[in-house]
């Protein structure tokens, strides 16, 4: 009898430790989730947030973000932002990226200047 009881307790503990869905804490619906459910009915969770987070971590590392900063940077993003970044981090607008354009414009201008089409580098 005592043995049986012990087994039951041990199993209960094990179940709790495993975080079995049966006894897991019910998740409240957060306000952000509620707002998003009301505004767009599309597949909210095609990619799980945990997966998106991992993906963003890997992309940040690949894009040269200091590994010491990655966890803190990822932790402050919402699930929606994580999914956006996981999808588009490589091609979404990155304010700051102007070097190439300026170089090209400059080269074009120099050529135009040299062939005499324009005359803007003259000191007035």
């Amino acid at each position, binding site marked *: 009898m005592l043995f049986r009881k012990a087994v039951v307790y041990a199993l209960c503990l094990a179940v709790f430790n495993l975080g079995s869905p049966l006894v897991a804490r019910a998740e409240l619906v957060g*306000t952000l989730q509620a707002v998003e459910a009301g505004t767009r009915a599309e597949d909210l969770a095609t990619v799980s947030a945990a997966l998106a987070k991992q993906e963003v971590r890997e992309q940040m590392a690949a894009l040269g973000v200091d590994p010491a900063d990655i966890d803190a940077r990822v932790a402050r993003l919402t699930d929606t932002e994580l999914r956006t970044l996981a999808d588009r981090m490589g091609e979404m607008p990155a304010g*700051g990226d102007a070097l190439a354009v300026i170089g090209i414009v400059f080269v074009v201008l120099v050529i135009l200047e040299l062939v005499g089409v324009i005359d803007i580098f003259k000191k007035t």
Partner: protein
Amino acid sequence: MRRASPTHHRRCGLRGVRLRAGAAVLTTLVLVGCASNARLAELARPLQLPAVVELDSTPFHPQSEQQCGPAALATVLEAAGHAAPLDRLQREIFVPGRQGSLQPELVAAIRARGLLPYEPGGDLGELIAELAAGHPVLVLQKQGFGPWPAWHYAVAIGYDSGRGTVLLRSGTTERLELRATVFDATWGRAERWALVVLEPGRMPARPDLERYLRAAASLEAVGQLDAARAAFAAAADHWPDQPMPRLGLANIDAARGRWSEAERGYRAVLALEPRLAAALNNRAEALSRLGCHEAARHVLERGAAQIDPEDPLRPALSRTLADIEARAAVAEAADPDVCARLGQH
């Protein structure tokens, strides 16, 4: 008035190249694509905004190479009274491999300081309304052309409707006066993305319920509960008939384990919108936490019959029901009289 010619404007990521010519050509290219005038005066007048606004106390952080994101962010943060060192911001938002900074990380950096990052809806009228309300506006511009786009963050600090210009802190230029048409064209090509930093509890000039709620709820989602609560409270004042700000307030109570206050809050939400799935779900959870499992089950069962079959939160309700039943099996029930009182509503 001092004029800063656009030709002195040095863009993000540029070092050492005098930009006279480049900017002239870019400006021309932009103008070619934009025949119509953005008529600032016509926007300002019906909104009863001043003809000229310049937030000249806005600080100036000249950017170093590729650092227009941190520089613009430092500018709006300091203007809101939360100065942050540039090198610190750089570590928070700069992405070396993209040679720039990404919008969600700018937003997150503001949120991480317990401030509300609000995104004005994207027309020139809303931009100048924010400026007139004293809020400098961080903007994204798309410069460059064709296959060579160049994204740039700057901070709008004013406008002059008589001259038809917008004033910016931009790159290494402290006071850039851009023709509104030119500004609007580059801004328009970046989907008119804009950001203002608000102390939680303060409203933007022309608040939009959904955008405001999204910003406030994102504060909640990343655990900035005090800031989120202040923002929800302001929203509940501003939109007294709307259920979502009150749902936010109740969710903050729940996040802090104040189940009784939370349950009352959810009831108030349901009085405004009886079929709001999130409020039904969370009220049931709160009831169950208070030990009223039977009442909780009743709320969910009744709720499931009421909400839209297509509601994306429907699965959450089923999960909560399963959880409540599991809890009822192991946890003690509360005083039936107390639960009967709560469950009556």
